[in-house]
């Protein structure tokens, strides 16, 4: 039903503040439904009634602040949860890059170049991850919407998030170890030139990332210059 859909969007806007319990939210929703019911009986269409009802109930952000005073622990619990989830996500991403890199490198075994391939692929996967993070910041973009959906899922499924995160982490770790065991004896035979090349690449990483950052997000005055 249309009403349920619009109510869900409104609820989402309040839930994001994270200061209401499920019960608080249900109580508010029932109030809105009561108002809509009463107003439609007075002759308003359901859409009009919902508009009035939401206006009467007040600004979600103001409400969220009021509820924060009643549920002071809730906002902190949420903050800690997101910190933990963020740490887990970061670990998975980092491990993922390492796994992809070592897997790619192990494909080139035993041609004698896997260490270079490892460095190069680690670099390119890192750049790829960097690109994904950048495009997630474009509001309304496809990536941003996907990230938002994931965020809502994480918010609603703390246990599944933890279990999935740790399982993925362990799985990726095992894969990396497996891939590494294939190329590690080759790394032992690597010559000095390869090490030098490696050092050069390591030196180039921050520079490339810096330049890429400038390119993706130029300074304010640069943007004005190019516009003029």
């Amino acid at each position, binding site marked *: 039903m249309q009403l349920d859909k619009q109510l869900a969007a409104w609820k989402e806007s309040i839930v994001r503040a994270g200061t209401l319990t499920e*019960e*608080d939210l249900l*109580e*508010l929703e*029932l*109030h809105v*439904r*009561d*108002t809509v019911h009463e107003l439609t009986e007075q002759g308003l269409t359901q859409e009009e009634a919902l508009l009035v009802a939401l206006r*009467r*109930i*007040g*600004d979600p952000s*103001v*409400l969220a602040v*009021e*509820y924060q*005073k*009643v*549920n002071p622990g809730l906002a902190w619990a949420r903050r800690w949860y997101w910190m933990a989830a963020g740490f887990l996500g970061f670990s998975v991403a980092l491990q993922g890059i390492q796994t992809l890199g070592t897997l790619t490198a192990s494909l080139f075994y035993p041609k004698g170049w896997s260490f270079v391939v490892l460095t190069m692929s680690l670099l390119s996967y890192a750049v790829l991850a960097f690109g994904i993070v950048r495009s997630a910041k474009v509001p309304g973009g496809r990536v941003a919407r996907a990230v938002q959906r994931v965020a809502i899922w994480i918010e609603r499924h703390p246990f599944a998030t933890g279990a999935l995160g740790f399982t993925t982490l362990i799985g990726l770790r095992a894969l990396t170890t497996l891939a590494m065991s294939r190329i590690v004896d080759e790394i032992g035979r690597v010559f000095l030139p390869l090490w030098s090349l490696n050092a050069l690449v390591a030196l180039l990483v921050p520079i490339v990332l810096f330049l890429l950052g400038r390119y993706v997000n130029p300074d304010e005055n640069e943007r004005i210059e190019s516009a003029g």
Partner: protein
Amino acid sequence: LVIGKDLVAASATPLILSVLLAGESYGYEIIRQVRTLSRDRLDWSEGMIYPALRRLEQRGLLKSRWVESGEGPRRKYYAITKQGKAALQGEKDAWLTVNSTLQALWGTPIHATR
């Protein structure tokens, strides 16, 4: 007539407690009753009553329960506690003191006019 935000907030506690003195009720009904009694002049941002109710409950002045009803939707009912009644007496004394002081200053009892 516009009643300022601070006064609306300050009067919420005695109003809620007084409405509940007549029997248990739920947020929507409390608001409707206050609005009718004030002839629409006390206009609450309706959502605000719920955190206010929660605060009063945390202070032990109210207790609440969910009531499942056969035909209508379920609702959270609030009832005043013994402690709440004592607190209301205190509020009453305070408001009457403010009221009588103002009336003494203004000479005659003033009834709200439009």
